[in-house]
């Protein structure tokens, strides 16, 4: 079902059918969006439940000014970033850093199948500040244009380009011993 068909179904009063179409069409894509941020299958699974509860609750207020997927992506992104903020506080209370916690997650992730270069890349991304991480993940993995990222994050294209440039330089430095293109 296309975005327009889903919205037509929703506007005809069939809210549950529209929601189920969103689940069918977008849950897997949103899973990978969140998974890249939190580096844990279990946490991603929990967050997706919260994300789709928010989508169901907020769906009546969706006016169609933005594309449906942009709106869904924004909700998922907010949840993922809020999760990382909570993790940062938790790490501080345990006299650790969020970077350490994220690296531990990547090392102990039973679902990680990459080689050492991929592992190093994941750790380098995990160490980036939130804004740089966001723009890098959206550009590198989702191949989203800056204009679309600007709509999702509510920031300017110029600022995003600067953040992506800085993030790329940091990652390039971390991966200087490997041959990865990005």
């Amino acid at each position, binding site marked *: 079902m296309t975005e327009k068909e889903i919205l037509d179904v929703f506007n005809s009063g069939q809210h549950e059918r529209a929601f189920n179409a969103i689940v069918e069409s977008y849950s897997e894509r949103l899973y990978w969006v969140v998974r890249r941020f939190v580096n844990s299958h279990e946490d991603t699974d929990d967050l997706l439940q919260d994300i789709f509860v928010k989508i169901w*609750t907020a769906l009546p207020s969706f006016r169609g000014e933005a594309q449906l997927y942009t709106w869904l992506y924004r909700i998922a992104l907010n949840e993922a970033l809020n999760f990382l903020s909570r993790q940062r506080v938790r790490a501080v209370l345990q006299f650790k850093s969020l970077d350490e916690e994220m690296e531990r997650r990547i090392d102990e992730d039973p679902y990680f199948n990459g080689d050492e270069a991929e592992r190093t890349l994941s750790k380098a991304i995990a160490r980036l500040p939130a804004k740089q991480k966001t723009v890098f993940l959206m550009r590198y993995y989702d191949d989203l244009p800056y204009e679309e990222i600007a709509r999702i994050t509510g920031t300017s294209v110029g600022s995003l380009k600067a953040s992506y440039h800085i993030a790329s330089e940091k990652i390039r430095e971390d991966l200087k011993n490997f041959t990865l293109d990005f």
Partner: protein
Amino acid sequence: MTENELHISVPKGYFDNLKDRLSQIPVQQRVSLWEKVRPYVALAACFAISVTAGTFLLNRTAPQAESYYDYLAAADMIPVTDPFDILNATDSSEEELSSSEIVDYLIETGFTEDQLVDVYSE
């Protein structure tokens, strides 16, 4: 396992299971709404039960108000004459009728003169 370009995977059949679970959210949210209002409904029910039970107990224990008909029935038992008047009453209070009062009474009730003469001549 499903794998993507991140070189991370998910358990087999995970996404089918995920979609099934997420599709239940509207139903769960309806249940959640009931869960939210349930304490208030319970509180209202307790209040209604307390009021009903209190009213019932009051009706059982408080004296019943007499109806108008009950009052009329009891009226026969209320002495109209003061009992002291009866005790103090004497035969002397009864006056004897004079012969002229008897004649007047008989005339009023339709006796003729001839009949009166007959009565008094007997």
